[in-house]
């Protein structure tokens, strides 16, 4: 079944098409949720609600060719909503100590390259909500600071600041997991 037909069938609430659609996107979307969530349980909650939200909004799609992006964006927005509802105050008011990094050389391009993805995911999950969301949105999903500011309802400068602090904290956490700079470089 072509993608456009699949979307149209889902818009008609054809349950078989919905199952095919779900199978097509479920693994990718759970991966997104695992990045944005603090724990696996939270990720599964976000995933389940987000999937139903996608089917509820599927009538809004007019260009089925952009469905991949659309689906991912819905899930990202839902994850943000989840944390807006649960921990927005924490995001906005959290004050985390700046982590200073002392780089001995400029060979940081190899950073993370040798890391196991599970370890990396674990380090990201341990970040405070605000840092984690901004790092996910900017570094992984490619949103610009203006977009992040609009979606999170914060100032652009706050987004930059959160990203910087989050980045340093992430490196620090990786160090805490036994990965020292000299091992990375």
């Amino acid at each position, binding site marked *: 079944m072509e993608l456009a037909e699949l979307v149209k069938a889902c818009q008609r609430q054809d349950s078989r098409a919905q199952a095919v659609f779900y199978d097509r996107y479920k693994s990718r979307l*759970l991966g997104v949720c695992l990045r944005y969530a603090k724990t696996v349980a939270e990720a*599964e909650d976000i995933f389940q609600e987000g999937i139903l939200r996608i089917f509820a909004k599927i009538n809004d799609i007019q260009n089925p060719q952009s469905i991949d992006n659309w689906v991912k964006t819905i899930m990202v927005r839902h994850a943000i909503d989840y944390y807006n509802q649960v921990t927005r105050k924490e995001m906005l008011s959290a004050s985390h100590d700046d982590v200073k990094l002392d780089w001995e050389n400029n060979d940081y391009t190899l950073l993370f390259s040798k890391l196991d*993805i599970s370890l990396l995911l674990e380090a990201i999950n341990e970040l405070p909500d605000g840092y984690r969301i901004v790092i996910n949105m900017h570094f992984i999903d490619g949103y610009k600071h203006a977009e992040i500011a609009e979606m999170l309802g914060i100032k652009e400068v706050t987004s930059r600041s959160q990203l910087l602090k989050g980045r340093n904290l992430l490196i620090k956490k990786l160090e805490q997991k036994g990965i020292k700079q000299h091992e990375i470089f």
Partner: protein
Amino acid sequence: MKSFDDELNDAIQKALHDSFENFERKPRASIDQKIYEALDKPARVRPLLLSAAAVLVLLLGFGVKEMSERYASFRAITRSRATNEELKERANVVPLHGNIVVSTDQPSHTRHNASANPARPNIHRPLKTTAPAKPASMLHGHTKPVPYKVKAGAEAVLPAQNNTSPVIDSEHALPVQIQDNAVAYHDMDVNEIATGRLVPLPVDLAMPAISLDVNSEDSTSGEPEPRPVREKLDFPRYQPSDKKSFAWIFNLSATNTFQSIYLLPNAESRILKVSFPVSTANLGYKFSAGFQTLGLQWLFHYSHLSWKAEYIYAIDEFKADEQGANRYVFERLGKAETVTSKVELAGVGIKKQFDFKGKRSGRFFTQIGADYSRQLQSSGRNFLTGSISAGKVFTMNKNTDLIIGPYFEYNFNKVPTAEYSIKVRPNQVGLSLGLRMNRAK
């Protein structure tokens, strides 16, 4: 030159993006099961939709009932008028002994010498009578009528009762049957004639007068014409509906959607141009029904709106125009795509109507209001709108106003589109037609 931070960011971005680009994790079987079960459930019957439909049907029912009652009243009034006219005609032409005519509409104190003349049987002429005055109470039909007795040779001037009491100067007495007939009509309470919820009318029929054909010269020719009874049968003038009293409200607006567009920053956006063609696809309607009380209108409404937009998406083709020696202007080409959006909304609203009255131009109104609506389609988006309308008020009858005028509705929400970098604000402009039916008194 990039700073250390920027370079580090780029490196981390590349590393993380590459690591997570294809990151997938299969959900547990129990989660799959839950999702499948949720998808297999039959579509929920939307409670809001059902409630809105029920309320609209209820209001329409009340409206139809109200209209039926009004129609019944109107029929009764018409019948009453017809009966009164008939009475008048019957009373006007009643042959009496071949040359005596009973008339009701000639109040006067003019005296005549009565003498029968078959050649002029239907002269309606004010007469003097020797008959005793009919008691005022009899005119209202609450007492038993006192029959006339015309005494020959005697003179008596009846005191004018509403200028319609006849004065008879005749030596003939009315036959009892005719007296009874005439009085019988008088005795009928108008509310018995007009059944239903009829407002009592100030109907006042005069007692029949006897017009005798006379040979003598008409001594009344120089006198002014008496006031016609018809005037007294007229309906009272309509008063404008009381805007604070309870009333049913029905409103239908034909709308045309025009959009404001908001482009959001998006690195992946490929939109080159957006335009809004003039099209019938922008037409919609809104139906409201509710009631007015405490000076405010409380409405339930259903809207069907649609709008059309044309997007031009960039494609990976370019056109190069040579502008001179070794100078080119490159233009990215695009592919047009037309998107039509349709939404059905149901919700509640509140309006305040201000009425104005011009000296010559009649009545006008202005309405301001606010609506909350919810989309009936699956996305269930909320809409908050403010509206304003103004126009002319036409009084259809004592309790019913028809209003018509231009209508503008501003949408406070920006509506997301399929393109995440675009939001639109669909506003409405159109023509509103409304009916305000005050509770019949």
